[in-house]
């Protein structure tokens, strides 16, 4: 069936079989391969995208369910040619190693900071608890997100 979905601000119209998983649609139909697949039991969060701004596991939705909705993937985090504060902080704080979980982690972080601009360490860890990282031990991911929060505060302060 034909669906229309907006991904990172770009509208796509595609024909797709109902059973096609959203993650697979994003990766193979749209060629946005930054969204990854790490499990088959809705456990790991490597496939996390923002669905109307809310982080969800795109392996546990069908592409047809995205008809008429807006998605953000890792490819959409960079704005106006600049890395987002979350992206920059992940690099600055060594919040990634193999990079496979990173897109999901950054999207969760982005959503978290939009609703909770100054999360505690505990709140960050809680928000990340649907995503698995096998490399970092999480320490630097948490640090990166808290640092991004601080950066966003400073930036907001300068603008206002």
């Amino acid at each position, binding site marked *: 069936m034909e669906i229309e979905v907006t991904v990172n601000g770009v509208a796509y119209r595609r024909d797709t079989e109902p059973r096609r998983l959203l993650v697979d649609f994003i990766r193979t139909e749209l060629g946005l391969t930054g969204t*990854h697949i790490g499990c*088959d*039991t809705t*456990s*790991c969060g490597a496939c996390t995208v923002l669905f109307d701004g809310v982080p969800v596991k795109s392996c546990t939705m069908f592409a047809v369910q995205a008809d008429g909705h807006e998605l953000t993937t890792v490819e959409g985090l960079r704005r106006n040619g600049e890395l987002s504060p979350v992206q920059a902080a992940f*690099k600055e704080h*060594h919040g990634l190693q193999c990079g496979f979980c990173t897109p999901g982690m950054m999207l969760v972080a982005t959503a978290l900071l939009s609703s909770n601009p100054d999360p505690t360490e505990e709140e960050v860890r809680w928000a990340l608890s649907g995503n698995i990282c096998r490399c970092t031990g*999480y320490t630097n991911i948490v640090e990166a997100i808290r640092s991004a929060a601080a950066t966003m505060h400073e930036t907001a302060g300068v603008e206002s």
Partner: protein
Amino acid sequence: MTTTHQPATPFEMGGIGHSVRRKEDDRFIQGAGRYLDDIQLPGMLHMAILRSPIAHGRILSIDTSEAEATDGVVAVVTGEMLAAHGLAWMPTLSGDTQAVLATDKVRYQGQEVAAVIATDPYVARDALSGIFVDYEELPAITSPQQALEPGAVLIRDEKEGQTDNVAYTWEAGDKAATDEAFAKADLVVTLDTHYPRSHPAPLETCGVVADVNPATGEATIYLTSQAPHAHRTLFAIVAGLPEEKIRVVSPDIGGGFGNKVPIYPGYVVATAASLLIGKPVKWVESRSENLISTGFARDFHMHGELALTADGRILGLRASILSDQGAFYADAQPTRFRAGLFHICTGSYDFGAAHVTAKGAFTNKAPGGVAYRCSFRVTEASYLIERLVQNAAYELGMDPAEFRLKNFIRPEQFPYLSPTGFVYDSGDYHTALRKAMEMIDYEGWRRRQQEPHPEGKLIGIGIASFTEVVGAGNSRTYDIAGLKMIDSAELRIHPTGKAILKLGVKSQGQGHETTFAQIVAEELGIPFEDVKVQEGDTDNTPYGLGTYASRSTPVAGAATAVVARQIREKARKLAAHLLEASPDDLEWEPGRFFVRGVPDKGVTIQEVAFAAYTNFPEGMEAGLEGVHYYDPPNMTYPFGSYIVVVEVDPEDGTWKVLDMVAVDDCGVRINPMIVEGQITGGLTEGFAKANMQWITFDENGNCIGSNFLDYLVPTAWEAPRFRLGETVTPSPHHPIGAKGVGESATVGSPAAYVNAVIDALWSKGVRNIDMPVLPHRVWGALNGVEVAP
């Protein structure tokens, strides 16, 4: 001796000792990494594998006709078809053979039986339901003890001369000397423990895109490979393809941890299918397939005994191992060492005698035996000695820290010949432990432990003072499948002073693109940003054995330093030519030669590089490049002391980490930020194994732990917080004094966590709980209830 390392280069240049940010991160944080599953080729087909639902059974018939008739199915491959091409079986990395697709029997649940090649992955999966296999079920053997019982069903009945389920036997050390030491002992402390079956479970599963060009026969094999060169050679041997026609490309790897060292049946089937069909074939495992069939780790049933004097000295160690190998003996390990480097189990302690025996048994479980973030069974060895040492201290009535300090190898004893034949290169164990004790306030915690807890919880303090052996090999002693364990580096300096460094190893997240560039920056003064590091493509990199067993820095890192130094020597001659001085009169500072005593008269490495292509002296070969194959003189021996404080809830058996300190000594740290990242990751994986992560089987051989609902890996919520410390004892034989660190924390930390829980429960009579220390096991130990599994 412990030293501190002061960087010799400015931060922007990024030589050794600088926490420069990683070059590889820019693509990963923008979703522009290129992993195996991101590869799409024109006309590419998709493969799905049918797996055995039972653990042991004879195949009576396979009917593929319905699958073949499914729309979109291009081919259905069975073992019989592979057998016609001599591909039904393949060699393992330990000299055994392994079925590619089963022809006679299935020997474990999840074993590969047939494969469907289709135009679409959904269709390939659908068509698996159209393959009908008749099995005659056989009894399943689910433990090595059961495997060795008289009359046990023979798992490897196809193997000529195999009359029992023994996979190997092996020993190390000196039995007579050890018996003598035990005869003199005042006290013998024993421990029986099972290091459970585990799985590396990198977040990216394994996969392949095999692209055999039907016109030329050239095979490009994109592979999630930690060892692309070794895999090319093995592919040539297994598939009978000429090696020059095989190009293995290992793209960005989403974590390896040993999982991506072996060659798996799916790789061979996909390549054979591409060869036969003439189109690219992709196969990417699901997580369930990854956990049920590919390289498991550990699964050692260990018995250890320490001979002790009444005043707290260790006299000797006996260890015997029964390893559960699964259906095929497929450990990825050096040929001569049937139980890997388990004989490093004398650990950080100085005593005269040790004897280690090991026996491996075939069982109806998946094969593997990979070194999961570990240098060939060093993890099991470290765990056994560190658990034994703690129990020994308590039995002697000593504090476990005091007992360790009394028995450590002393700094002046290095290089130290261990009773099982290793030559430890350098160490200072006392300093590391004392530093950890100070950081965590060991005495303070011991006092707090005695105070009554308001909620009835129990406090435990656990130590592990591990020593690893990493960086295989030397070529005299170490090979895998005959390939000597060397590694290489090829460095080319371009005319503009930029460089490309090509390596035979392969990063899976360790940050090679940054750290190896930093070694070049250190040696040649070329800013690390200007050095491109290339790995993974066998057509474009020099030969090497790959990245596992913490060997990249010890071996390929050394190769990089050596080739850079060779290039610097040529650069010196070029500089002398440019400066019209004698090479002997030139001084080197990072990035620049100058005439001794005339600091203003000099040339930069960039100017020299330009001259290498534009203005080289007569008689000198043009260019500025080199390649070096490094054959390490010895292994390196990283070490450290970890201390964990836990709080146990005796009502529900849960425990949590209140504090943890990790003092690591991996010699000189190239990039401290990356080193700490490796340690933090390893400490978390150690926690995972101590707390939750394992694979087990029911009595019928059904795998429990074949997906992320059953195979538990911690999230940010469960993962402990850590405080890190360091000491620096350079390796005396490594060109930059580095030792390798990727696995230290996975090796060292499990015993620290378990020791902490046992410490909390010791006064209640608990002497051991096997990993993972699950809540019900703690409860069972406290209440005297036998818990199985």
